[in-house]
């Protein structure tokens, strides 16, 4: 067993898990509090990546671009909330799914129109572009460590906000009983708009963080959104804790499955058979996990109590 590789891949899994958490937490917040299914959440992830990529090229600095792009993505989220989402809160989930599906088409095409069909590669500043050598064959790109650090910080910030601040209290109260919250004199519309914009900012942030590795491209949101769905299904829709544990679980299983499943399979089947079956199984692995969780707990691992 190659332990250096195992360590590197575990960190990659943690990195994917944290990015998934950023996307899934917004999704689960919006669903938990607004009871709104937002398929276009992945489009916001892509939008964040494109805005940041464009600003990086225009300003020549990735970090400044990110600082500007996060509020811009939040603004886009706010705009979507006002125009498309708000009239649909009282409607059926089917309505929300169809409208946000239309929204994906609109956002994808707008990005195509504005930024062109090609993806945008995002250059990193030199001090982020290096590698750190930890000895014993463990060499990690600096930027990936930054993503992990940043992801952990954001996750803690989010937990702190939800658990200890007034706005967090309102968010939790809104998730349990929105009628009661508005009866107590809280402007529920503003709270909803804030939550939606916050979700957009988190998704956009995830897109920005990944864009120097994968570049900003038009299809990027469509892939992550399904995985984020799997995360919140496994974790329990509407639960922050569930989103975090689900994201780490899915991130690790997916990454480790892709790199080590053939080695594991080779233990009990011929190398040729392992080599052909491992990619197919690892592509399906997270869905198999999802099915297994649902078979035991149809409401996910940590269903929120008040639903």
């Amino acid at each position, binding site marked *: 067993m190659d332990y250096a590789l195992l360590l590197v891949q575990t960190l990659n899994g943690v990195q994917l898990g944290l990015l998934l958490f950023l996307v899934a937490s917004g999704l689960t917040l919006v669903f938990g509090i607004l009871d709104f299914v937002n398929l276009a959440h992945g489009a916001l992830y892509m939008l964040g990546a494109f805005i940041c990529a464009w600003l990086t090229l225009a300003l020549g600095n990735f970090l400044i671009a990110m600082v500007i792009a996060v509020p811009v993505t939040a603004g886009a989220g706010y705009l979507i909330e006002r125009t498309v989402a708000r009239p649909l809160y009282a*409607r059926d989930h*089917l309505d929300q799914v169809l409208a946000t599906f239309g929204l994906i088409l609109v956002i994808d095409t707008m990005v195509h129109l504005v930024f062109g069909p090609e993806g945008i590669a995002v250059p990193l500043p030199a001090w982020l572009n290096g590698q750190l050598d930890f000895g014993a064959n463990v060499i990690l790109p600096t930027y990936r460590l930054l993503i992990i650090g940043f992801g952990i910080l954001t996750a803690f910030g989010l937990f702190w906000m939800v658990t200890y601040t007034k706005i967090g209290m309102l968010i939790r109260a809104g998730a349990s009983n929105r009628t009661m919250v508005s009866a107590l004199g809280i402007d529920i519309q503003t709270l909803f708009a804030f939550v939606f914009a916050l979700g957009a900012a988190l998704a956009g942030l995830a897109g920005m963080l990944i864009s120097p590795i994968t570049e900003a491209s038009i299809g990027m949101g469509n892939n992550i959104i399904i995985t984020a769905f799997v995360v919140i299904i496994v974790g329990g829709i509407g639960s922050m804790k569930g989103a975090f544990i689900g994201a780490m679980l899915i991130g690790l299983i997916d990454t480790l499955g892709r790199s080590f499943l053939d080695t594991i399979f080779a233990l009990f089947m011929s190398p040729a058979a392992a080599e052909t079956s491992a990619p*197919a199984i690892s592509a399906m692995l997270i*869905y198999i996990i999802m099915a297994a969780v649902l078979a035991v707990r149809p409401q996910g691992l940590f269903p929120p109590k008040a639903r």
Partner: protein
Amino acid sequence: MNRKTITGIVLLGLLAVLPPIFIATGNAFYVDLTTRLVILAIAATSLNLVLGYGGLVSFGHAAFVGIGAYAVGIPAYHGIYGGGELIASFNGFYHIALAVILSALFALITGAICLRTKGVYFIMITMAFAQMVYYLFISLETYGADDGLVIDLRSELPLVNLDKPLQMYYFAFVSLLAALLIVRTIVRSRFGMVLQGAKGNPERMVTLGYNIYLYRLAAYVISGAMAGYAGALLGNFTTFISPDMMDWHRSGELMFMIILGGAATTLGPLMGSAAFIVVEEILSHYTVYWHLPFGLMLIAIVLFARGGVMGIITGKDKS
């Protein structure tokens, strides 16, 4: 008979006579378009059984279509002609049977899990399972991965030659008629009544002693099998299949067709597919950015439809 039903029957009549006219007037391209329309209408009709009549919002129906298409493509790739002397000369029986059985099986396994959940969980899980199949076929290098697979030889069936566009078309058209008839018969049967009852008020149906889980699962399997059949036709028609056929955008489009034409009506999915194909054709003719007006249209329909989309489905005004 209301105006909508008449429109649908007129549309069916047009579809029955138009393609030969297209050929005669040298517009063979439109035969391709109508063939695609008819095949998509079969897939939409199958989805309508669970979505429209059963109230089960499946967001993964493109997976069944894809499985059906690959059930034609993979045996064709290997040159497998099925077993048995009797059918050896007509591999179409084998292909279509494989498409129907595999997609029914996939519907049975995933449906058994999906139907344990409801509401938004059901939407997301059907979507996730479809995406699982999508990634599975992307990872299969042998069958072209995301580049797709070209089908060299179409399925062989007695009496019809699928290489001839007009015969391909009428084969699909007759299949559509059969699909419409099957769904209509199911919906009017006792089984269909239970299914619709479970959509309106599941508690009542349970209290009446029905195991609605099994009824829904049966409907889901029938629907999946029918979509798989549509996939087998689509594979034979395009002779090129790729995982893109199972992308969740395709599932979304199928749902959109139903909503456009009117869910829980026999001819609604057909009308929706026709509207979808025509709008797509016209818009994409003018601009490569046709998804923009298309998406805006979709949003507008949902936002401004009276009583919401469910209102269109039940035919009732929600307010």
